[in-house]
């Protein structure tokens, strides 16, 4: 049975789209048939991050309205055959994302995919609520920073009360914490909340910690999900998070200062 995963955060700019692209690509790299959907109606961006912005013909709203078929709107990734992108519409009518229409599309996708990754817009308005409503799992993307942690807590509360699973008294949505833009150095100096701090405050299980990394901007510049960059600490951390998501045990990397050989510290990359 296909699993619907939402990446959500409440706060904007914490790395939801980057993470949605990375996690979807990570699942596809493990051989899972995966589609990643942009729920941010009017502010389409997943296509840019996935590098398929010039191949968008039809979008989510076209399919909901019956103006296009699902397979006309889905864009197959050129790097991985298991990975598909479902772009959103640039319409300014936010209400175009009708709940019953979304449900119909998701049901159709469930027949063809193992994982449906939903990239939520920021905020707690219609789009964000629609994105989390049908979720089986939620990945709460959080920065180690006060406003992001607070908004994450709010979203966790909304998942527990407003999701389909909550409304129908089903098993609750599985929530996972993904801590992004983490800087070990700043945590050591006492300038940044630590993983333990955020875990303690939000009290949800930790899926992964993504270190602040130059490779993330480089990946978005080129439209490549960061997991395709084998050199990148962020990419490797996302792959670990995906492995944990499918049930593997992985140690948390980059949470201890790296012991670097003299050669690497002289010539290596950070």
């Amino acid at each position: 049975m296909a699993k619907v995963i939402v990446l959500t955060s409440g706060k904007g700019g914490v790395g939801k789209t980057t993470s949605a692209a990375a996690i979807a690509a990570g699942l596809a790299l493990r051989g899972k048939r995966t589609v990643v959907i942009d729920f941010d109606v009017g502010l389409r961006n997943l296509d840019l991050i996935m590098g398929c912005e010039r191949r968008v013909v039809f979008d989510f709203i076209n399919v909901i309205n019956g103006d296009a078929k699902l397979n006309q709107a889905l864009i197959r990734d050129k790097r991985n055959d298991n990975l598909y992108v479902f772009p959103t519409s640039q319409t300014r009518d936010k209400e175009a994302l009708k709940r019953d229409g979304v449900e119909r599309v998701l049901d159709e996708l469930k027949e063809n995919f193992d994982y449906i990754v939903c990239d939520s817009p920021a905020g707690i308005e219609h789009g964000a609520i629609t994105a989390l409503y049908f979720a089986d799992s939620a990945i709460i993307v959080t920065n180690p920073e006060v406003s992001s942690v607070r908004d994450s807590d709010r979203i966790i509360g909304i998942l527990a009360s407003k999701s389909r699973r909550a409304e129908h008294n089903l098993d609750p949505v599985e929530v996972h914490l993904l801590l992004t833009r983490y800087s070990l150095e700043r945590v050591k100096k006492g300038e940044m909340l630590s993983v333990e701090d955020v875990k303690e405050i939000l009290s949800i299980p930790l899926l992964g910690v993504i270190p602040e990394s130059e490779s993330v901007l480089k990946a978005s510049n080129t439209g490549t999900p960061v997991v395709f960059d084998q050199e990148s600490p962020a990419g490797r951390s996302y792959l670990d998070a995906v492995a944990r998501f499918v049930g593997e045990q992985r140690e948390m990397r980059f949470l201890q200062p790296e012991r670097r050989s003299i050669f690497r510290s002289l010539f290596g990359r950070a």
Partner: protein
Amino acid sequence: MRLLDLLFPERRNSAVIAKDRLKIVLAHERASRDAPEFLPALQKDLLEVVGRYVEICDDTLRVNVGKSADTSLLEINVEIDRSKVKPVNNGAAPRPRPRPIVRLDPESQAPWVKPG
């Protein structure tokens, strides 16, 4: 840095301050998020009753419903200023202000009397 911390132990690092602030604000927000619907009404009534004995203002009375394991806990916090305790008659509670009785039809029976 370490030496500075030893010399000025009251200088807490900003991450600790962030954590403490978050804990306080989230405790408050979670409590109001999970609160039952009757809470504002209860708070208003309590304010009226307690207000007969002491002068209090809205923000010095807080009502929360908390949970620990299987028990629900109703927590009422009232801050009282000793100097503003109202006089009490012979140890009894001050009388509530009489409520005006409204009868639409003076001939009819009061609504709580069962018809014979």
